[in-house]
């Protein structure tokens, strides 16, 4: 028995040293390929002109902080969720509310539109992700058709349908991500690796294959293979929680927004961080990020109530947008890139163009 204990300790020590040497090797490999900075490569690219982006619509109706929003593929409908437990579907052109449902919990931190436009998913402090079919029958009670799909052991922080209405990917305060079958509620795959709450996720553009990226309170961004459940790449350069991750439109990179007041760009093929978007004057956390269609612009919402627009290639800020009267908590560019929507703790959503 004594020899078993000794054997285990030796194995632990040798594993630890192997881990250290592998980490050192990884850093060395990544450093070797770091031959230039992104903004240097972009030196000759024409600078962007002045941007005139204004609030074109204000969506009012939530009774408390807006926590999350998502666009419908039809480029006009928006689903949003709030601290007061309400989930609302809006027509952003007319600002009319088309559907509203009250969740049994407060802090509905995640919501998503199904690709078909016929359902929405949401969840939060109830530790679940539920799917609600959208019906235009005035007599139908939306809450009655609710389907519980995902069950976590802590709050739901993010959810997204995959390419179809049939599967949902979730991220949770329990430190895991999971893939679920909507119809049966069955767990198809779980993703373990984060050392703390997972706060956000984003699916790779469909052409890039079956991967997604997640960000968490462990300051790590991790890229996962959806089929195997394996983490294929991990990045740990942020100095605080990662609140938002979003793929670059080509699928070769992703951006992150963090409580450390910076946004960063990680290239998947170079396997490293390639740009930091920060300014000394920006001291509040970035809560949400998204790219414009070409990937040239990065829109980021901050806890200081502003939205900063960054030139992704040159690393400079091209515009700062004021309007919200409290933290910006969520931000998404519309599917056809003509506008972006931001949600805030000031209870409103704004559509900018």
């Amino acid at each position, binding site marked *: 028995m004594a020899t078993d204990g000794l054997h285990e300790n030796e194995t632990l020590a040798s594993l630890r040293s192997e881990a250290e040497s592998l980490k050192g090797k990884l850093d060395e490999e990544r450093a070797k390929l770091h031959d230039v900075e992104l903004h240097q490569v972009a030196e000759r690219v024409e600078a962007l002109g002045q941007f005139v982006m204004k609030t074109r619509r204000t969506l009012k109706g939530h009774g408390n902080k807006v926590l999350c929003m998502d666009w419908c593929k039809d480029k006009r409908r928006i689903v949003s969720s709030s601290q007061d437990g309400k989930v609302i579907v809006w027509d952003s052109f007319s600002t009319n509310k088309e559907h509203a449902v009250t969740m049994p919990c407060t802090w509905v931190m995640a919501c998503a539109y199904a690709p078909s436009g016929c359902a929405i998913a949401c969840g939060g402090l109830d530790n679940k992700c539920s799917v609600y079919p959208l019906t235009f029958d005035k007599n139908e009670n939306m809450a009655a058709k609710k389907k519980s799909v995902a069950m976590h052991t802590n709050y739901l922080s993010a959810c997204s349908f995959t390419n179809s209405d049939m599967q949902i990917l979730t991220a949770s305060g329990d430190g895991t991500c999971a893939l679920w079958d909507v119809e049966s509620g069955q767990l198809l795959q779980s993703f373990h690796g984060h050392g703390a709450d997972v706060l956000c996720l984003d699916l790779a553009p469909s052409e890039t294959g079956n991967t997604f990226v997640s960000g968490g309170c462990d300051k790590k961004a991790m890229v996962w293979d959806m089929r195997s459940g394996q983490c294929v790449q991990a990045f740990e350069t942020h100095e605080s929680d990662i609140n938002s991750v979003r793929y670059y439109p080509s699928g070769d990179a992703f951006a992150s927004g963090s409580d450390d007041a910076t946004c960063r760009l990680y290239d998947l093929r170079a396997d490293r961080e390639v740009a930091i978007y920060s300014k000394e004057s920006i001291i509040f956390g970035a809560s949400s990020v998204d790219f414009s269609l070409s990937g040239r612009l990065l829109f980021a919402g901050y806890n200081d109530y502003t939205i900063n627009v960054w030139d992704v290639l040159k690393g400079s800020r091209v515009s700062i947008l004021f309007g919200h009267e409290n933290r910006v908590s969520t931000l998404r560019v519309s599917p056809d890139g*003509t506008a972006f929507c931001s949600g805030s703790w000031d209870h409103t959503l704004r559509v900018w*163009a």
Partner: protein
Amino acid sequence: MSGSSSVAAMRKVVQQLRLEAGLNRVKVSQAAADLKQFCLQNAQHDPLLTGVSSSTNPFRPQKVCSFL
């Protein structure tokens, strides 16, 4: 003294690192050039970048016609 569980955990860490060490990486100059290329190629089709005119952007105010 849960020796075996920390060994198991450490094994997973090492396995993960071995996997990541085996990745094929590209130079930043190459990766950056591709990112730049993608941006430039798609720039014209990016409404928020080019500032699409009122007539085609459903969110921008329409110019009002008045009948004389």
